């Protein structure tokens, strides 16, 4: 779920764009540097972006029967590092907005902050910390991918709560409401995406 066009007040949309900008620009610089050193990497980066887009089209099987889609940024954060994912994630969001009508243009900044910045960085941090704590590759992949998914939706909920605080209980109440609707329901799906990440990395490490 990305925040739809026009859902955020103008000030919020602008604010989140400014918040996401340094990360995305940093990612763009990393990409420009990479491509200058090795022109062929344009194709590899393009393939990574296309994979992230396509991964979000994989159906996540769920026990309840309803299906949902992974965010797709967790494996990318581990494989390609968060700065690059900040850019690739934003490109993917732009494509989702214009090819699938998921998300929007004025809300691109807010969605990029959740999906391409907070999600990948949280996932990558969880992956590194789990590894550093002595865990094996697969537990670390699980933690990284699942938390990247969850962090994305927690951030989205926070953005919505900030824009629409509860009339009675303010920001905290608003956060609880949006977390309840957008993040709590996401917990099983985050676990599912973590499992998918483990299965993906298992196949990759065998090859």
């Amino acid at each position: 779920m990305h925040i739809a066009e026009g859902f955020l007040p103008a000030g919020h949309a602008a604010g989140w764009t400014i918040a996401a900008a340094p990360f995305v620009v940093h990612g763009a610089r990393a990409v420009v540097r990479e491509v200058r050193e090795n022109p062929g990497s344009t194709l590899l980066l393009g393939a990574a972006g296309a994979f992230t887009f396509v991964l979000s089209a994989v159906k996540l099987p769920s026990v309840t029967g309803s299906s949902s889609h992974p965010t797709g940024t967790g494996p990318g954060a581990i494989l390609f590092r968060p700065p690059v994912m900040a850019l690739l994630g934003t490109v993917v969001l732009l494509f989702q907005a214009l090819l699938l009508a998921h998300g929007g243009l004025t809300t691109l900044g807010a969605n990029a902050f959740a999906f391409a910045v907070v999600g990948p960085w949280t996932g990558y941090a969880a992956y590194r910390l789990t590894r550093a704590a002595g865990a094996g590759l697969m537990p670390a992949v699980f933690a990284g991918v699942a938390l990247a998914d969850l962090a994305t939706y927690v951030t989205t909920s926070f953005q919505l709560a900030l824009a629409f605080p509860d009339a009675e209980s303010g920001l905290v109440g608003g956060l609880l409401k949006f977390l309840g609707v957008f993040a709590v329901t996401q917990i099983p799906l985050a676990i599912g995406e973590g499992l998918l990440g483990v299965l993906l990395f298992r196949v990759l490490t065998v090859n």
Partner: protein
Amino acid sequence: MTGLAVDDAAWASAWRRRAPGDKMLLCGGLVVTALVLPAWPGSALVGAVVVALALGPARVPARTFLRAARWPAAFIAVGAVTAVVEVGGGGGPGWAPDAAARAGSLVGHALAGSAAVLLLATTTPMSDLLPALRRARVPDAVVEVASVVYRLLFVLLGSLHTIREAQTARMGYSSVARSYRSSGALAAAVLTRSWDRARRMQEGLAGRGMETGLRVLPEVLPSSWAFLAGSVAGPAAIVVASSVAT
């Protein structure tokens, strides 16, 4: 099968050969108008104009436009209800005092804004929009990565659908556990395909003289003064109509 309905509509649109800049000005103007005017009647007018343009002169299939609008509509409905529910207070959850008005405003702005973006999406292929990013001083390398994403995502979506179909035929999705195993293998197969594609494409393009970048010559899509005038006059008329009405 592997096509994306919005993308197919954009390539087939009657506005396909209009300058992307013209369409961006029109749709950008409509988005801003939808957001800054009061939902009634401003956003409602924008929504009506967008739907009339899409189904009329731009000849976007109504089915494609409505199906694509389902996604944002679902988010907007859930989000708006959540926004106007009140959880503080003593008793259980209830409606905020001005719930109907706030929800109406939120839904109006968001639906009209989403529709205006969808008008751009269903009339302008991505490959016409990417050169505009270049003019907006986005670095060439980034625009080129984005154009490779656009090309490869169709190749990979094709692989994704075919592999999933093959797995389904061999009972790969007959239980939740098997579905997970199949999805993991599917994701891994698509990832290795994407790397393989990139590597082989690199050789193919080196043979065509790739040295620094992936520059291509965009099509010449001339701008129309009449269209530009309409793009400015339309939103302006909506602003006037809206302020007269309120």
